[in-house]
């Protein structure tokens, strides 16, 4: 709500000889600005959280979360994904570098994980297919597991 909307009303009031209304016009304008501020801050905060989702969940969002997003937010997420992917491709030579993996320095290449829920089949780099059944334990490459750990499907077993 730009300042000139308020000034426009004030000028009208002055020209019609009703300048005593000006304090009330200002009052109403403050309320409108307040509403605008609250709505804008809310929508912006949502975007900040949606951006964080890309780092927490990876590039495919669970349906439950997509359900709560409006079309414009989904579009924004797609654009953000693209920008991030372009940036990551430009790092580290030919194949690029996935910076959403290994966000803390890893202590070992392979880790022991336990499956917390049924997740079906999971393929690792050498072609082997692992069946992720609840309570099964596996010794898997760390980089493959990171996202599933964040999503709560796998649990890192520290012995």
């Amino acid at each position, binding site marked *: 709500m730009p300042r000139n909307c308020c000034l426009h009303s004030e000028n009208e009031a002055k020209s019609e000889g009703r300048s005593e209304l000006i304090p009330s016009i200002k009052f109403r304008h403050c309320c409108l600005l307040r509403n605008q501020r609250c709505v804008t*801050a809310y929508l912006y905060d949502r975007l900040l959280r949606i*951006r964080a989702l890309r780092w927490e969940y990876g590039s495919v969002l669970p349906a439950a979360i997509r359900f709560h997003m409006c079309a414009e937010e989904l579009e924004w997420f797609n654009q953000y994904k693209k920008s991030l992917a372009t940036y990551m491709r430009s790092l580290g030579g030919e194949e690029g570098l996935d910076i959403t993996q290994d966000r803390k*320095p890893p202590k070992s290449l392979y880790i022991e994980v336990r499956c917390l829920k049924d997740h079906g089949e999971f393929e690792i780099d050498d072609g082997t297919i692992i069946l992720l059944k609840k309570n099964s334990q596996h010794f898997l490459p760390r980089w493959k597991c990171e996202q599933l750990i964040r999503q709560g499907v796998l649990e890192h077993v520290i012995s």
Partner: protein
Amino acid sequence: METQAYVPVPPGVGIEENFLSLDDILLSQENLPCRTESSFPRLGFLEKSSEAPDIPEGTKMEMPLWLAKGLYERKRRVLSVELPKVYREGWRTVFGADPNVVDLHKMGPYYYGLGSQLLHFDSPENMEIAQAVLNTFIGRFRRTMDSSQNAFNEDTSGLVERLDCLEKALKNFNRNENYLSRVQ
């Protein structure tokens, strides 16, 4: 604890608020005692105590900070803002004597934030208010940082409940930093 991917807009520092900061929006919702210096026609419905169609000049009412800031003008034709008790002479002396004793959460959880915003209203006591707020912060700083040295799962509610929002944020930030530096 994962490094945070979600970083909310922080509150403004000093006299300026951050437009998009949720903390500043909550802060600006705090009420201030005010006195109208001109009448507000047709807004009488806001004053539940009287049936008048207008708010007459000289009405004492409580307004949220955002409204007071919006209406206030240096030439004083519209509104005059009184200082809430906590920022007046009496309480300023108490804070000066021993800032650690006071329950800042009860005194309005935004003591520092509101104190900084009050400076917009050209009170003759602005210098004293600014000094008092600053000295209180300095006096309490050490206790605030000490209280952040506890583990995550310890119940620190006894220490925390007397802190104002800025102090709580500092404490949590410090606690996270300590944890991260120990875990690596």
